[in-house]
């Protein structure tokens, strides 16, 4: 074993690249390799602390204490700037050290901060968090956020992600609007049910939780929207009484939208309200629409889908998921709607792929499939997946739904119709 050292004299940037691909524990252990390796680890600029940093210990208080100690020692011996700091622990809860770490990090001009304490109580974000002026990305999980009065926003923040964070509506709206460079916003399980977003540079928005009212007031650059809306009884009541037109409140100011995804009650949410007199926006950039849990027995939701389809002339891919609630299939269905509201000459010039999932064979589902097949000249794939509840029904025969689909007129000569039955 007398060969020369292969690795130690590689450029620092490469050593750092290698070290960033290692868990911190292994990183620190390189300090005993040789004299040159003693402090190579200490100049790492991207730090990720998690429960694997300390040996597997199943007693949570002990694990937490060891992790705190590890972080403390590490930071003390660290040398140089810290660009990214992540701490992710199921054991660590409130810790007085967190305040000190954030103070330390704010002095090191930290740019990306990711704090996730997933076990136990919410921790309160200390005020020195708000003095990290160089932050470009901030991700917080399970904390209480009270921005101080003097706080004027993070001037460089581009990415903000708050998951299960306690923050008042005003505070979060101010936070969003004061971070003028904000490009991506993720809000999961947020306290308030109402939210107005003003973010002139925002391009990506992800929302999940129980919402009653979302208003995108100033988001002209928004390109990707993904919303998962859940409701409880209160919110459901509110929906029934609402008079605002949610479609325009939500989608009225997003002309650059490229991708729209909706889960849960999203489609229902934007179907509420009266659209008479409103100008139809056109979404020229909208290429992908994914809407799940759509109630195909609710005419208003069907109308929303149709409206979206008709205002997206460059749509390329569509995915619609039904709500798979067979009990709803018994209501009387207004099929005249399709003759009245659907323009015959509508053409989906760019639509290449359509996927329909959780279908039940409901009349409106069939009409939509028929409409799409008949008006999409470049369609390549129509993939339908039907939920079958009763196994005895469709065992040997081909599904009726499938047979009916095969009879529809297709505008595209190349289309492949794929059909699967999901047995429950």
């Amino acid at each position: 074993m007398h060969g020369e050292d292969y690795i130690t004299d590689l450029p620092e940037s490469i050593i750092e690249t290698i070290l960033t691909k290692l868990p911190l524990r292994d990183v620190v252990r390189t300090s005993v390799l040789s004299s040159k390796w003693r402090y190579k680890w200490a100049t790492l600029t991207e730090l990720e602390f998690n429960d694997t940093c300390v040996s597997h210990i199943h007693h949570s208080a002990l694990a937490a204490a060891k992790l705190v100690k590890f972080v403390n020692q590490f930071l003390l011996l660290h040398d140089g700037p810290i660009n990214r700091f992540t701490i992710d622990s199921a054991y660590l809860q409130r810790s007085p050290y967190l305040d000190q770490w954030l103070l330390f990090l704010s002095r090191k001009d930290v740019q990306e901060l990711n704090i996730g304490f997933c076990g136990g109580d919410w921790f309160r974000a200390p005020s020195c968090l708000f003095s990290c002026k160089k932050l470009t990305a901030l991700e917080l999980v399970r904390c209480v956020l009270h921005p101080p009065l003097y706080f004027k926003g993070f001037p460089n923040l581009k990415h903000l992600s708050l998951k299960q964070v306690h923050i008042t509506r005003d505070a979060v709206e101010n936070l969003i609007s004061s971070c003028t460079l904000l490009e991506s916003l993720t809000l999961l399980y947020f306290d308030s049910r109402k939210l107005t977003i003003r973010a002139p540079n925002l391009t990506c928005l992800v929302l999940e939780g129980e919402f009653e009212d979302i208003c995108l007031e100033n988001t002209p650059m928004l390109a990707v929207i993904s919303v998962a809306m859940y409701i409880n009884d209160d919110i459901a009541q509110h929906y029934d009484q609402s008079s605002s037109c949610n479609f325009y409140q939500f989608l009225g100011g997003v002309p650059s939208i490229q991708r729209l995804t909706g889960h849960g009650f999203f489609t229902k949410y934007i179907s509420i309200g009266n659209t008479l007199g409103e100008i139809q926006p056109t979404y020229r950039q909208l290429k992908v629409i994914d809407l799940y849990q759509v109630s195909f027995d609710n005419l208003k939701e069907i109308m929303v889908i149709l409206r979206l389809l008709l205002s997206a002339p460059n749509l390329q891919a569509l995915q619609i998921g039904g709500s798979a609630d067979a009990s709803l299939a018994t209501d009387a269905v207004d099929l005249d709607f399709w003759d009245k509201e659907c323009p015959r000459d509508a053409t989906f010039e760019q639509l290449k792929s359509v996927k329909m999932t959780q279908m039940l064979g409901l009349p409106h589902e069939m009409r939509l499939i028929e409409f799409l097949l008949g008006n999409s000249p470049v369609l390549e794939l129509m993939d339908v997946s039907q939920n079958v509840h009763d196994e005895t029904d469709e065992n040997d025969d081909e599904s009726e739904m499938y047979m009916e689909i095969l009879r529809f007129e297709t505008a595209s000569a190349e289309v492949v119709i794929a059909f699967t039955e999901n047995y429950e």
Partner: protein
Amino acid sequence: MSEPDVIKPEMMKSYIWLQTADGSIQQVEQEVAIFCPFICHEIHAGMGSSKTYPISLPARVNPVTLSLILDYCRFHQVPGRSNKERKSFDEKFIRMDTNRLCELTSAADSLQLKPLVDLTSRALARMIEGKTPEEIRETFHIPDDLTEEEKLEPLKNITDDPRIRLLNRLYARKRKELKEKEKLKNVEVEAEHVDDRSVDELLSFINGENGDSKEVKTAKNKKKNRRRKEQQKNAPPVCANSNTSSSPSNGTKESNGVSSVSRDDRVKGHCLPNISELLKLQDSEDDRFALDDDFDDCDIGDGIDPEIKEQIDREVEDFARRLNSDWPERVQELLSLGQERRPSLYSINGNGCSTKRSNASGLEKHEK
């Protein structure tokens, strides 16, 4: 171009001339070469179009690594390939010896070919992750030029990994014993073998092990608690049987040995204080572990008493076994400290350590 009549498609490709630091020049299809940002810039600056003006590649690129890099580029610059194909190619591509891999990383970095730097760095990281320092040094031929003291300071608390400290002590001891071996030849042979195997076994245990330093600590506490054994004689025997939930050491989510014990009502009054006490001990003793451990005995000079050596050997065996056993069983042990039927695990009498926990312990063959 000298064949104007039959114009084959290959003739239409343009070629670029590259020169490596050793002076050798070669010709490469332009579409392949421009995959490297460095070369791309040079081409835009007007270089490389003829043999007399080749692009001079950075010193870190030698003909061998250049050829590898070009292979990489040739494959990846084709746009139609699926991710699966690319991944598969990458996995085969990085199979080379370590020296070559390091050179390749360096060369790719100087040509600014980031995807290849990432790929090779990941491969190098995989060679480091989870390995002991000794193994890493061997893989990369890193000289071991730190003294024992240096290895232990000041990071001993930060690595907080008793395995490293143990390993370093054992290596120090091994080196000293090898020195001794040169002096006293025959008598120590058997003990030496036992010793070697212990260390190697430990290595393999530790390598395969996910890190159960809690066991190490428990072992340490066991030593201290041995003195208190007398007081705990009256601990209720039910403790031993209460913990039947045999969750594997790495698999428990929320509940652990301690909380599952606490769920047992019969046990609550008696055993629980002991556990928390022990755990407090574990935490506070953390620092002391580095300083005044029994294992420091092995760092005493060359005149090691054979008897003490045997004791140390046995302790090392125990350690290894501990590293291999499960946490719930550990708790059972702790609870049943006062019990007569559980043999002491630190028998110094030379009778060997009998154990009920024989999980694939390769060390069993060492027991005398």
